[in-house]
């Protein structure tokens, strides 16, 4: 039943018009704060997800893979939880799912700042200049292929 809450079928990628990634300062799972200022000059993948969202969970291995392979080149993967409870609720789930990239607890302000999150998962790619490059709504088997191609392009762009 909860599957009704997530985007079914193919992910849809939307080119963005260069809107700036919003500033945010969100709670990490270890009690620390995670600020968007730490992302300056990086290519950023922001993934809005929920701990009860099966398609979101299916994507985790792919996001772990991107995190592992491109981190040293300047990619930061950030998971932002939506409607998943407090940090203390999320932390055991993150451990259970084996997430190796940073996860923070989202709020309505950050969702709005990204232009609205209308279903889960919703993934944003941000270029090194802090501009939202692309938005992916939903999940499908080819999403990680598209993501990787775009990440490679953004990492190569050092202008």
């Amino acid at each position, binding site marked *: 039943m909860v599957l009704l809450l997530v985007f079914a079928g193919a992910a849809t990628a939307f080119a963005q018009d260069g809107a700036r990634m919003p500033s945010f300062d969100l709670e990490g799972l270890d009690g620390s704060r995670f600020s968007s200022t730490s992302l300056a000059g990086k290519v950023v993948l922001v993934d809005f997800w929920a701990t009860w969202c099966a398609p979101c969970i299916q994507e985790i291995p792919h996001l772990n893979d991107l995190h592992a392979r491109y981190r040293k080149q300047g990619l930061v993967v950030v998971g932002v939880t939506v409607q998943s409870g*407090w940090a203390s609720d999320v932390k055991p789930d993150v451990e259970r799912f084996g997430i190796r990239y940073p996860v923070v607890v989202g709020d*309505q302000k950050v969702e709005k700042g990204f232009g609205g999150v209308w*279903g*889960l998962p919703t993934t944003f790619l941000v270029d090194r200049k802090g501009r939202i490059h692309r938005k992916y709504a939903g999940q499908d088997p080819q999403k990680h292929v598209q993501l990787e191609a775009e990440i490679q392009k953004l990492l190569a762009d050092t202008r």
Partner: protein
Amino acid sequence: MRRQLEFLIAALIVLGGAVSCALTRSTATTITTTTSVAAQAQAVAVEPQKPLSPDQQRVVDYLTSHWGREMNVTGVSLVMRIVGGDYTDDDRVAIGRYLKDHPELHRTLRTFGWETVALDPLEKRIALVLSRAEREEKAAPSLNELSEVLQATPAAITRALQMLERFGIVSRDPSVGGIDHLMAEERYVDWEGAMRITFMDHRVGVEGLDPFNVN
């Protein structure tokens, strides 16, 4: 106006069924966020919180022992019927306020919000309509319009509005016209995206189990 309102409410009902529909809708529609926030219009009167009665506590105990099973997000009004007894609107307000004040009771409250379980289906539908109208800077519907499109009597709409006011979801403001109510907090006006499921209501029947709600 009525046609627009009917479309709006039909859309909201569809949205209540599956967020997957929101993919197309959201990409086709630019939402303008209003800056006229109801929270600044009027303060919501706060009724004093008393300790729960044994019957009210019975509802809370049922909820906390069932939430999370089979994706159960059952609301107070359904549980009042399940456990029986002579429950009133005052009981639901008391229980709703208690749940609001005690998110530590259960992860369901922290995940989906106390509103999801405190409001009844009609209250949720009215809240959705008013929230979206305000967010899109459209005129609030009149009592008769709400009554017609929600297929509820004016008396039922009025009662539901009173409950929404008591819960602090809407506040009365005669200056806005229409139904004379605005959302009481900015977060309700900006009830966007995934967070919107908080106002949803789905009921499930499974053989051998009590009926329950899911999101």
